[in-house]
């Protein structure tokens, strides 16, 4: 079933308003998506009827809060094919998920000279934690390269993975939009004896996802990019890995016993959830997942792929060589976004002029500075879509680009 964008837009309160007298054309969902009313209602309903701290209360509303929180874990896990809730850890964002891998698994398993393989299009979230470990422990980072059209270059995979302990790559570039061949990399990594971590931040909101099918050992994603609230992320990992890993953050909830001279960690998944968790946020994320499931992730994918195709075709038709779209040009190879350069106008200036037309795009390095250096630019402009975008949004982007041209040429 196709997505009925008019109906969908009505579910998102932010589109009820005009911004500066203009219709809001929100093309920055890759930075953070908007939220449907169902997500806000789930959180408000929770706070208004049954809020209490979870896991320890022996009274009705605390039991209900605990039940809802653990149910949210199951729902969110099931959304990415993670059926064992012990393997689903709530973090504050996917950045924390990757830090958890680096601090806990990394520090327990990696030492001087150990090789971690990343790609040249990683977000800083899957980069800085490893750079910290390189500085602290002397691990060695190796980067998979890109093809000229911005795909992951797997031609030398076997050689590049040789001796690696971990391969940690994004499933979808937040700059190029490129979908990476995760399964192929995972199989090669496993053959080389390495574990595989996958950054699903830009995949899960847009493409039906099964952690098992991807071949991932660790998989992270983040709530606020998938119609969910801020303040919550997820780390999924295989149980045996999580069981062997030392705790990361220490505190309440993650222990089974504490003495003045030591402690024993709790069972999974709570071992990795220190302190009061993002309870309302977990419920909000579960509501987001339900909303996406109702639309159907296949339909979401088709809708966004069609938008990518339309964007690439219509912008190229309107602006020819004046627009340079980074990354592969077939919509099937990308998620829901395009990055571009337009007539030498700096992305900051582009974005500023577009805003005057109600069109929100992101301008900057998108937390992927090494990739920017690879592309030879300081910044790009990026337009990204979600379930509430349609072709008129892309047309509005094109119209606004014309105006930018007028001002700066």
């Amino acid at each position, binding site marked *: 079933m196709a997505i009925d964008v008019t109906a969908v837009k009505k579910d998102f309160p932010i589109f009820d308003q005009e911004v500066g007298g203009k219709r809001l054309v929100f093309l920055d969902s890759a930075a953070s998506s908007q939220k449907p009313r169902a997500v806000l209602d789930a959180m408000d309903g929770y706070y208004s009827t049954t809020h209490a701290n979870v*896991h*320890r*209360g*022996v009274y*009705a509303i*605390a*039991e209900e809060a*605990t*039940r809802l929180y*653990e*149910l949210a874990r*199951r729902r969110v896990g099931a959304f990415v094919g993670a059926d064992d809730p012990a393997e689903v850890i709530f973090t504050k964002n996917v950045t924390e998920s990757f830090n958890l891998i680096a601090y806990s698994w990394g520090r327990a398993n990696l030492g001087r000279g150990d090789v971690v393989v990343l790609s040249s299009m990683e977000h800083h979230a899957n980069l800085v934690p490893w750079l910290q470990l390189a500085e602290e422990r002397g691990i060695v980072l190796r980067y998979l390269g890109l093809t000229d059209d911005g795909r992951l270059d797997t031609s030398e995979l076997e050689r590049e993975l040789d001796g690696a302990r971990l391969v940690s790559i994004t499933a979808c570039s937040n700059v190029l939009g490129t979908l990476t061949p995760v399964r192929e990399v995972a199989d090669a990594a496993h053959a080389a004896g390495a574990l595989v971590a996958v950054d699903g931040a830009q995949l899960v909101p847009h493409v039906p996802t099964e952690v098992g099918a991807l071949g991932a050992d660790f998989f992270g994603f983040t709530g606020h990019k998938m119609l969910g609230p801020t303040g919550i992320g997820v780390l999924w990992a295989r149980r045996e890995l999580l069981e062997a890993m030392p705790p990361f953050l220490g505190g309440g909830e993650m*222990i*089974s*016993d504490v003495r003045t001279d030591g402690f024993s960690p*709790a069972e999974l998944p709570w071992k990795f959830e220190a302190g009061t968790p993002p309870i309302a946020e977990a419920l909000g994320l579960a509501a987001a997942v339900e909303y996406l499931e109702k639309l159907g992730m296949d339909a979401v994918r088709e809708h966004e792929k069609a938008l990518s195709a339309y964007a690439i075709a219509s912008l190229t038709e309107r602006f020819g060589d004046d627009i340079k779209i980074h990354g592969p040009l077939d919509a099937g190879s990308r998620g829901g976004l395009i990055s571009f350069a337009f007539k030498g106008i700096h992305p900051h200036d582009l974005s500023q002029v577009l805003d005057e037309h109600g069109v929100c795009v992101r301008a900057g390095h998108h937390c992927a500075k090494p990739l920017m250096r690879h592309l030879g630019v300081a910044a790009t402009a990026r337009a990204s879509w979600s379930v509430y975008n349609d072709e008129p949004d892309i047309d509005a982007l094109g119209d606004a680009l014309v105006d930018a041209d007028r001002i700066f040429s």
Partner: protein
Amino acid sequence: MPGLEDLYREIILDHYRNPRNRGELPVPPAHAETGFNPLCGDEITVYVQTEGDRIVDVKLAGQGCSISQSSASMMSTAVKGKTIDEARRVVSTFKGMMSVHEQRLGGDEAERSSDALAELGDLVALQGVVKFPVRIKCATLSWNTFAQALDAVGAPNH
């Protein structure tokens, strides 16, 4: 909402007020395991004495709420005199009964067969606990600890 009468059945309060098999056993020949309830800090130590594959004595030490104490007490009477394999089956039936909470969350598994429950005797009184999910850990604490003791007893190097 489930009421207190579902939880605090008379037989449960009886085992709580008059716990059976309290005490300790010399280790060895008995085997002892200690379990914690991380929620409330309760601790229980289960002593198991076997002869061949038969459990000839069980004793309980530690402290806890009415649910954990009565569950332990009922468990001790249920497994004493049984073979290790028979005891394992009781453990598994009991834990199955207690996992209704998990099923409720998932919402897709059938109720326990009433045959299996019949085996549990008095212990069926604890079925009401599943309506109070946080208390399930109280009810299962002694069982998990006992199961660990059985594993240790059954281990080759014992």
